[in-house]
């Protein structure tokens, strides 16, 4: 399993990234810090405006819930005190998705990972790196990055986002588990996904390395 990432693909936004992970393709654009509207302005930190657009049609309550989850995660990871009275606008556009309407975990996972690259591209200050993994338990077996049709029949599914500090996934930033599962299963999944997250982080490093070399290609 690997990411396929392109950064800086939108020339008019401050940071952008396109990510393919499994059967999901997503495009994230970030503008900021920019001037907020008066009602968005916070006196001591940056406000976040997150807009999620579905792959077809207009956004509904389903996207609202996703926006809320993403906001909770990102507002704790961006150093918002560095940009008081400013606005950071993040637009997430899904291009291809692989799950039915009732599920959002593959999308959430792709959005989180893509936001990381877009934030890096926008050069916004972050407390730490982060990486997200999606796992499901299907008749007793742990499966990472499940495709949509397996997801429907799975017993439980989990979106797990780790904080990467010093190249180690040591803190749980975000966890969204649904279905039916025991405490034991949960901790087995957590233990197993830690190493997966660290491998993914090494991939992130390679991608960012290439991106930075490309930024300074004229040197």
């Amino acid at each position: 399993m690997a990411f396929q990432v392109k950064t800086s693909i939108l020339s008019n936004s401050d940071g952008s990234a396109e990510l393919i992970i499994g059967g999901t393709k997503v495009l994230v654009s970030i503008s900021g810090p920019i001037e907020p509207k008066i009602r968005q302005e916070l006196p001591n930190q940056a406000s976040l405006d997150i807009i999620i657009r579905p792959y077809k049609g207009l956004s509904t309550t389903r996207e609202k819930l996703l926006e809320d989850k993403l906001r909770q995660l990102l507002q704790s990871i961006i150093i918002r005190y560095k940009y008081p009275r400013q606005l950071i606008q993040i637009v997430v556009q899904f291009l291809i998705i692989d799950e039915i309407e009732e599920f959002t975990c593959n999308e959430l996972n792709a959005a989180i990972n893509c936001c990381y690259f877009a934030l890096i591209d926008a050069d916004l200050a972050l407390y730490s790196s982060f990486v997200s993994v999606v796992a499901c338990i299907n008749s007793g077996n742990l499966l990472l990055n499940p495709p949509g049709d397996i997801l429907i029949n799975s017993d439980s599914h989990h979106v797990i986002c780790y904080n990467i500090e010093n190249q180690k996934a040591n803190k749980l930033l975000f966890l969204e588990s649904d279905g039916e599962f025991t405490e034991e299963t949960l901790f087995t999944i957590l233990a197993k996904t830690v190493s997966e997250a660290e491998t993914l982080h090494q991939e992130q490093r390679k991608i960012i390395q290439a991106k930075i070399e490309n930024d300074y290609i004229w040197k």
Partner: protein
Amino acid sequence: MSSSLILPGDNLEIEDISQYKTTIGPGIYKFPTREPKFIPTQPGILNHSTQSNKQLIYIESNSKRYIPHKNDLVIGIVVGSIGEFYKVQLQDFSTPVLLNFMSFANATKKNRPNLKNGQVVYGKVTVDSIEIENEIECIDEGCGVLDDSGYVFNVNLNFARELLYDANSIFLKLLANKCQFEIAIGINGKIWLKCGEGVKKEVKESENKEDEDDDMDIDSTNVKDLKYTLAAVEYLKKAQFVKQDELKQVLNVCFKNVEN
């Protein structure tokens, strides 16, 4: 280059801050706690230098969005005025910065430049506190209003820094082989450039009426200057995405149509 890649969350390997006097630059965040703690917050190349008991750390990275810092030379567009200040936009959608009516060289109450919306100024940031509105001034030599015959365009911030700070930078030297130009580089990623007489909006000025015979000439030199300006702009825009050995080629491509 690879060895010094640093990402947010990585360990910052620096000397003990209790023994070294530490100066931090972009990309490093100091926790506002009683016990100082530094973390890297931006992805990029770590620059760390020590000297006797001092150390300097910063992270070099590229971005498109400019955050004002003191003493930065910037190019901005006047978008309005409020009280005794002009509002100057340094980038699209950024919070405008203020420029006092009096912050011009030799300005007095009676004699001060009257700027219109849309005019371009070259100034220096004097107030960069994030908590209050930022301010610029145009007092230093070279600062002031940039005339309308130049062309303003955007480049990445890292490239703008390279052009402005590196006196031996090859980009402008190469360009100088092709044409004469005047340039103003803003750290905010805006560049004002003009070749020869630059881009004149109206050819027929009232003062030119006397020598109407020369009209044809003025026209042709003006078109030539315009072409050169646009070619130079194209060259600089492209230069930030190619390797240095391809630079000459890019330059020739950009000026191919102009020189004939």
